[in-house]
């Protein structure tokens, strides 16, 4: 037992455990963005959708005391935001980049999420209920795997299920095959009788729901409270993550925990007094700097073949103009 406690207390295990905690919102948001991008819709509004999900989920738990309702509300709120983007880019054929940026400004830290937080009066109060670890203590204190994998809340376990479901959906179902066709070549998909518009709407909105749940990971588990701009750039890291994962759900989990580790390091190191001479801002900048570094590595390697990117990503589909 003493030995186990020793290992579980070591810096590496603590960092890995924090990687899972901080990686989970990234994982949800990245899975959602992946679904949207696989249908050919680039949604840069992830940060805004996460924030609206976070504030609405938090409001729901304060109102109802039910975590399940809170998660549903967060997902619906994120989906509603994504619906705006879908309407603009699919039906109205607006520029996907500008529309996504508009969504982030509309919903983001200085927009709707802040407005809702103020109007619903949810700032600066602790959550009535939060997602906590629930497995038996003996499991959670198991060597290494305990703190990293088992000492987690339901959102973390559910995120693993989501990865598997999304991977199976994309690669093993008819709908997933159709989705990939829509993202690669909407004209060919249309000729096959697939409703391109419906697929794009459905997956953009589903992506928003995932982003909303990702935001709720912050307000109901990690921070558990509501402050403006709570996600501090996680939505953007999630968009970068989809690129690192070559648009594959199983690789998203690796990327999410990689970036989760860099998000968790400042807190762990500060708590332990490790490298206390180094300014904390240096550690806080790590997730952002690492995103740039890894993105450069991936893009210079993938530049020649655009590894895994859906062929029609970012382009509207207009049947008459093919």
């Amino acid at each position: 037992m003493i030995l186990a406690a020793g290992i579980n207390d070591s810096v590496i295990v603590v960092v890995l455990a924090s990687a899972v905690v901080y990686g989970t919102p990234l994982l949800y948001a990245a899975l959602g963005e992946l679904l949207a991008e696989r249908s050919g819709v680039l949604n840069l509004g992830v940060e805004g959708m996460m924030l609206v999900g976070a504030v609405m989920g938090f409001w729901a738990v304060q109102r109802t005391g039910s975590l399940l309702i809170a998660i549903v509300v967060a997902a619906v709120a994120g989906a509603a935001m994504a619906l705006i983007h879908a309407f603009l880019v699919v039906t109205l054929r607006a520029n996907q980049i500008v529309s996504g940026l508009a969504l982030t400004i509309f919903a983001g830290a200085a927009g709707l999420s802040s407005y809702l937080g103020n109007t619903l009066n949810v700032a600066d109060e602790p959550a009535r209920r939060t997602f906590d670890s629930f497995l038996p203590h003996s499991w959670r204190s198991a060597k290494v795997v305990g703190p990293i994998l088992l000492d987690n809340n339901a959102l973390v376990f559910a995120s693993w299920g989501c990865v598997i479901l999304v991977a199976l959906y994309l690669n093993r179902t008819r709908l997933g095959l159709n989705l990939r066709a829509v993202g690669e070549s909407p004209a060919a998909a249309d000729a096959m009788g697939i409703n391109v518009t419906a697929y794009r709407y459905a997956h953009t909105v589903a992506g928003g729901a995932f982003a909303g749940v990702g935001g709720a990971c912050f307000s109901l588990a990690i921070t558990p409270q509501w402050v403006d701009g709570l996600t501090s750039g996680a939505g953007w890291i999630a968009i970068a993550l989809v690129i690192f994962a070559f648009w594959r759900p199983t690789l998203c989990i690796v990327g999410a925990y990689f970036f989760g580790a860099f998000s968790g390091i400042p807190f762990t190191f500060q708590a332990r007094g490790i490298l206390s001479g180094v300014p904390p801002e240096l550690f806080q900048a790590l997730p952002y700097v690492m995103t740039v570094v890894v993105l450069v590595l991936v893009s210079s390697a993938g530049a020649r073949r655009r590894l895994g990117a859906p062929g029609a990503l970012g382009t509207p589909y207009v049947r008459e103009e093919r």
Partner: protein
Amino acid sequence: MIRIERRLVQPRWLSVAVPIGTVVVAFGVMTIVLLATHHPPGHTFDRLFTTGFGGKDALNGTFVAATPLLFTGLCAAVAFRMQLFNIGGEGQLYVGAIVGAAAAIALGNHSGWVSVPAMIAAGAAGGAAFALIPGILRAFFSTNEIITSLMLNYVGALVIDYLIFDSQSYWRDTSSPTAKVFPQGKNFPDAASWPLAHAGGLLLPFGFLAGIVIAFLIWVLYTRTRFGFEVQVIGDSPRAASYAGMRTRRKILAVMALSGAIAGIGGASQDGDFRHTLDPRGLTSAGYGYAGIVIAALGRYNPFAVVVIAFLLGGLQNAGFALQGADFPSGLVGVLQGLILFCALGGELLVRYRIRFDRQVAATA
């Protein structure tokens, strides 16, 4: 059945009707949002406009709020015109403010004729250097500039925090005992205060006038030079540009540097026009860079339109700050900006396409 067809000719009246329609629809949706959250819309809009544009004091405040937006708007417009999505205006403004502040402190209290141009040059250099990071990555590694420039915004904010809160840096005031307990930036010498133009009771910040001059220069550059022509071709059709032998890589670097330099001057203007110290909280909480994207998109990347829209959105922002409180929640201005932008994007459709209600198709479908 509703059909959407591409327009063959774009009627002139549309270019007037669509922007007006955009604003009307945006305010209509805003009214619904306000009603749904139990705020009286008429009263809210009335206060918004009186505080933003009603009277000389309101207009002076609006010029102050519009100045940084003018720079970040031009920063985004210059880059977006080439389909180069530099959304790092925020961070480039921070770095411009840092380098501009260093120039202000270093030059001491000699002459405004030295300090002001030096601050502008320093701010431009700082912003350009910071923008060149995503520029170089995009040009040589084809790394998505949207994400890299955005990530650097967070890094820029952390750099300012470090300089003032967590170090004994050149920028930090360590002279008085209170400054040691409550970290703050050094106050600049008087020579580093930018002049203020008086015009009929209105106070125009030097930075705002400089921004208008820059807007004019950009217009000349983009419509009257070979460089500008090539930028537009690359923006509209990268393939045509490469067939024509245009050097895309060089243009990416040049446009990124130009874009960052403009945001950097915006940062120096924050130092010299308004704050007279390196002020981390004030700079990083305002979101100038993101508002600049809204302005550039609404102005359809036209520099003169950016001036006008920066002034109008500056009024909204000015009113938003002044009115913030229990009955006027923060975030309202951001929501309104977003709505206007959504409506403008939707309105583009009406310019490019026409909508027909086709009965015959409905009967057969």
